[in-house]
């Protein structure tokens, strides 16, 4: 085998090498090409995940767009399944029947078929046996037709919002040019790189070849833009099919984006639904309508996540850089972009936490070559390095969190209550803290009980108000909740209770780990301790509630719990007494016991005292003790309860009998 194969091998390589040499030409790649080749960076690993990421990117864009004009978001997402034949007809391809069956990957050979039939027969036998035994049989899924590689499924994803809309002429560039965006700059944003919608377009081009369709209208705009375009991946420029103005009768503003992509609903169904649910938790002021439409009506899904509040977090402000977070390149860019002329003004206005006097001191520290009035353009590269060094070493106040827009304790709480309906919920919002010059705020919520919540820890992670669904295991929140919180000390049972843990982190720069932006590493002590503290604060709030609940329950169940053991105790005592009475009689040792005891035993022997007598007496005692305890509890808890709210009820008759008691200093009015 080896010897016969190796010559052909060498032949091949020989024939290849000269060709390779010819090709070593310097080539350039457009950003679009790069992302098309490395789509996993943007979360387009496989068809299923691509469907999920597409939905996610479109939803987040919609939210950003609506929030930017302070409009309460209304987002409608529809996923429409497209069968292969329908897809073919869409692109004008005629369905071809298979002629040469053996050509295909999923061709079933005679042997494989025998094997499969035998397996099915066996399965049926087992099922019949189980049914005969009366066991509850799990319905075995109808044997799926073997799915070949070519058997892709296609989906049309439509996302409609009531946001800002897009200027008519900018639309091609906004969708057809990778790494162009409106969200650059230092502020808390959901998206970051201007990649999302474009990646969806690239993916649709790669998998279906169909263009993207955009309808958009801005506020007070009489027309509606309609644009159909795709992207020229090699040049990273849009390729516009249609770009026209249409009538806008309803005065609608916002955007509607339609894209047809390959996907996999079956495997990513739960992820997409989870995403929507968690998004609803963190944005309770938005209204979502999610629809899945397919030919099979039983597969259809329609979920409405309704709005629960009108209070929207403020739009995050763009902030300036913190001196400790900038690098050399950034300093150069800031110098090139600034309108300020001299060094003093530059330091004072282009960074946070540098006041004028502070800037002067810094310039003094830089060395004799520097002066406050020196022109920015005259700075040499060496001098820039010096500034950078000083920024690294000098001490600056931490940036404050004003530029951040956390969901807010109120919204988080509402979101949790709205989507989970828990028995108890506690929330906590931390103050701003700093990691590497970027401020961050951690908010946490802990809930107990609720519907659709599993037993044990259910962790919901949010970063800049986006749910994080993947790579949960390594995340700082998961690690903290699992390893660093002693749940039992808060009277919470980590395994049995239905615990929901919600942690939302917002920052101008979330320190994501990995390429997928799916989790925050556990190695950042600042964030880890802030997360731990927030969760603990929630737990402390819960603990007092839980303890109170337990006490109340104990009150209710005390009598029952005490009475439960009466038969055991009296039975044991009575049996000993009975044995004693009998032996005493047989041995006729009448005077072994004292008078009282002898009398007691005689009564037991004569059945004057029975087990029931003892039980009755003990039950009476229990009742008495229970009554005393209840009284004590009532007097204690009456004092410790929170102040009650006074309620004023209007009398039914407006006519009032009043007596005024007059004194020199006041009037005392009595109502009857």
């Amino acid at each position, binding site marked *: 085998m080896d010897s016969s194969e190796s010559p052909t091998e060498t032949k091949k390589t020989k024939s290849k090498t000269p060709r390779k040499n010819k090709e070593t030409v310097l080539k350039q790649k457009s950003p679009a090409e790069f992302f098309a080749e490395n789509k996993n960076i943007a979360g387009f690993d496989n068809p299923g995940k691509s469907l999920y990421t597409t939905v996610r990117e479109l939803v987040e864009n919609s939210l950003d767009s609506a929030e930017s004009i302070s409009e309460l978001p209304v987002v409608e997402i529809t996923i429409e399944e497209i069968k292969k034949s329908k897809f073919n007809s869409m692109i004008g391809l005629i369905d071809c029947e298979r002629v040469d069956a053996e050509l295909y990957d999923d061709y079933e050979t005679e042997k494989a078929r025998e094997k499969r039939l035998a397996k099915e027969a066996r399965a049926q036998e087992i099922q019949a046996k189980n049914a005969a035994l009366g066991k509850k049989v799990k319905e075995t899924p109808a044997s799926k037709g073997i799915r070949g590689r070519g058997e892709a499924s296609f989906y049309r994803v439509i996302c409609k919002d009531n946001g800002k809309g897009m200027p008519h002429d900018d639309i091609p560039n906004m969708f057809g040019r990778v790494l162009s965006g409106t969200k650059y700059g230092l502020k808390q944003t959901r998206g970051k790189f201007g990649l999302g919608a474009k990646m969806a377009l690239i993916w649709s081009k790669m998998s279906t070849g169909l263009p993207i369709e955009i309808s958009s209208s801005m506020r007070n705009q009489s027309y509606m833009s309609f644009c159909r375009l795709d992207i020229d991946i090699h040049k990273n420029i849009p390729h516009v099919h249609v770009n026209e103005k249409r009538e806008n009768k309803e005065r609608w503003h916002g955007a509607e984006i339609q894209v047809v992509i390959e996907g996999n609903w079956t495997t990513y169904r739960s992820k997409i639904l989870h995403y929507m649910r968690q998004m609803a938790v963190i944005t309770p002021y938005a209204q979502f309508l999610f629809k899945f439409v397919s030919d099979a009506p039983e597969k259809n899904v329609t979920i409405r996540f309704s709005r629960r509040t009108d209070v929207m977090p403020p739009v995050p402000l763009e902030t300036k850089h913190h001196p400790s977070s900038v690098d050399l390149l950034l300093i150069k860019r800031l110098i090139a972009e600034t309108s300020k002329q001299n060094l003093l003004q530059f330091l004072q206005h282009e960074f946070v936490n540098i006041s004028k006097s502070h800037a002067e001191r810094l310039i003094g520290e830089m060395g004799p070559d520097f002066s406050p009035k020196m022109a920015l353009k005259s700075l040499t590269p060496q001098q820039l390095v010096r500034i950078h060094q000083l920024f690294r070493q000098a001490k600056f106040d931490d940036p404050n969190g004003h530029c951040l827009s956390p969901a807010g304790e109120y919204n988080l709480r509402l979101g949790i209550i709205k989507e989970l309906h828990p028995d108890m919920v506690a929330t906590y919002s931390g103050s701003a803290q700093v990691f590497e010059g970027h401020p961050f705020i951690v908010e946490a919520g802990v809930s107990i009980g609720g519907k659709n919540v599993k037993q044990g820890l259910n962790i919901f992670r949010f970063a800049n108000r986006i749910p994080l669904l993947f790579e949960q295991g390594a995340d700082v929140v998961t690690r903290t909740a699992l390893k660093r919180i002693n749940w039992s000390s808060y009277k919470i049972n980590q395994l049995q209770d239905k615990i929901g843990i919600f942690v939302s982190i917002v920052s101008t720069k979330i320190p994501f780990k990995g390429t997928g932006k799916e989790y925050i590493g556990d190695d950042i002590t600042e964030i880890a301790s802030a997360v731990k503290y927030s969760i603990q604060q929630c737990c402390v709030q819960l603990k007092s509630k839980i303890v109170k609940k337990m006490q109340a329950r*104990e009150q209710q169940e*005390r009598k029952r*719990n*005490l009475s439960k*053991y009466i038969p*055991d*105790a*009296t*039975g*044991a*005592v009575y*049996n*000993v*007494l009975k*044995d*004693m009475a009998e*032996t005493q009689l047989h041995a006729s040792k009448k005077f072994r*016991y004292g008078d*009282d*005891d002898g009398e*007691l035993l005689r009564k037991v022997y004569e059945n004057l*005292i029975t087990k029931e*007598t*003892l039980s009755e*007496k*003990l039950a*009476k*005692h*229990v009742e008495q*003790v*229970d009554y005393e305890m209840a009284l004590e509890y009532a007097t204690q808890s009456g004092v410790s309860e929170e102040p009650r709210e006074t309620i004023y009820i209007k009398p039914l008759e407006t006519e009032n009998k009043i007596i005024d008691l007059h004194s020199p200093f006041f009037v005392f009015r009595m109502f009857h």
Partner: protein
Amino acid sequence: MTESITGSVLITVLFSIRSSAQILSPSRVKISVVIHFHFTPTLCPITAHLPSMAESSKKRRRTNTDDLPFKNKLKPDSTILQTLKDFSTSSSSSSSSSKTLTLQDLSLPFSCREVSDLSLSSVQSNIESLVLRIAHSILSGNGFAFDVPSRAATNQFYVPELDRIVLKDKSSLRPFANISTVRKSAITARILQLVHQLCIKGIHVTKRDLFYTDVKLFQDQIQSDTVLDDVSCMLGCTRSSLNVVAAEKGVVVGRLIFSDNGDMIDCTKMGMGGKAIPPNIDRVGDMQSDALFILLVEKDAAYMRLAEDRFYNRFPCIIVTAKGQPDVATRLFLKKMKMELNLPVLALVDSDPYGLKILSVYGCGSKNMSYDSANLTTPDIKWLGVRPSDLDKYKIPEQCRLPMTEQDIKTGKDMLEEDFVKKNPGWVEELTLMVKTKQKAEIQALSTFGFQYLSEVYLPLKLQQKDWL
């Protein structure tokens, strides 16, 4: 009897060929021995490949183990035996001369609670008067409560003069009409009734039996066991006087003959596993032995090694193990052996905090059973090995040592504060070394030089050097 003696002589004689140490008096040698004198030299070369025969395998082992580390330091067995004999006589004379102290001899600043063995009838009458009191209390409408001695750690006290833990006399009320004690008091009543039945019928049951009489109430055995201890403490008797015993756990092998329920047991003829230590000590008696010491082994594995190698025939001894934490029966048995045979006790435990803890339970008693510490503890147990200093002394390689966990280190540090450790400066030194090096090792770490290193080199060398604390 005859049979058992010949059996032990057979092997002893083989040893004596090698070590020329005559342990048993020549008068006990019988005809069968003579036959073996004839046979063994000629048989040896032929049967060498038969592993089932103890003689043959012994031969082969000896040739292989000559290059074991420290083997060359070993003196002939006769010298070691002489050392042991001296030690044995000196220790027995010293212990017999000093009278064993009791609690009454000391004037302690507080009163202590101690229990004693009570007869069945007195246990029965104790229960009966308690039950009568309760019945009266119930009938008068006051419910009832047990006055249970506290067995909490705060109620324990180490008495250095006695070298054991004793229980102070604090007690707590266990009323029925209280949500936190209702369960326990119901269980206590039930256990009292069950023990009462045992007293009437005069039979023994195990703790497991007791648990199964009312599984629904007891829920798990820990609960019935705890209450059982409470009851024996409350009635002022030992747990064995309640006629409730634990399942057999400990085993003994070696030069010991005793009667168990009237049957004579020869512990040299119990095979490799040894004789299980009977759960109720009152049926054990007539102890006889020609051993020079008692070897306490923590682990089953080390015990098996020694039993299989018939270590007790090379150096006459009694080997005991309770397979980990000792149960009551093993502790009572050890105490009885020590008292009746007056032998020194040497302990072979792991070099970790738990090994020392086990040693302390044998020596000073456990906190759980401190009310009965007078009957359960064996004073003056020597720590033979494996001690932290042995790890370097015997050059145990790094891969056989384990790093101590946080928990281990904490336990070790806590133990340094315990009085029973502090009273022995040697132990303090060893434990400090352990906590400092943060290394532990099991007895099995010695197997790194060969499975028989323990019995062939380590223990003999230890005995020769009188290396115990």
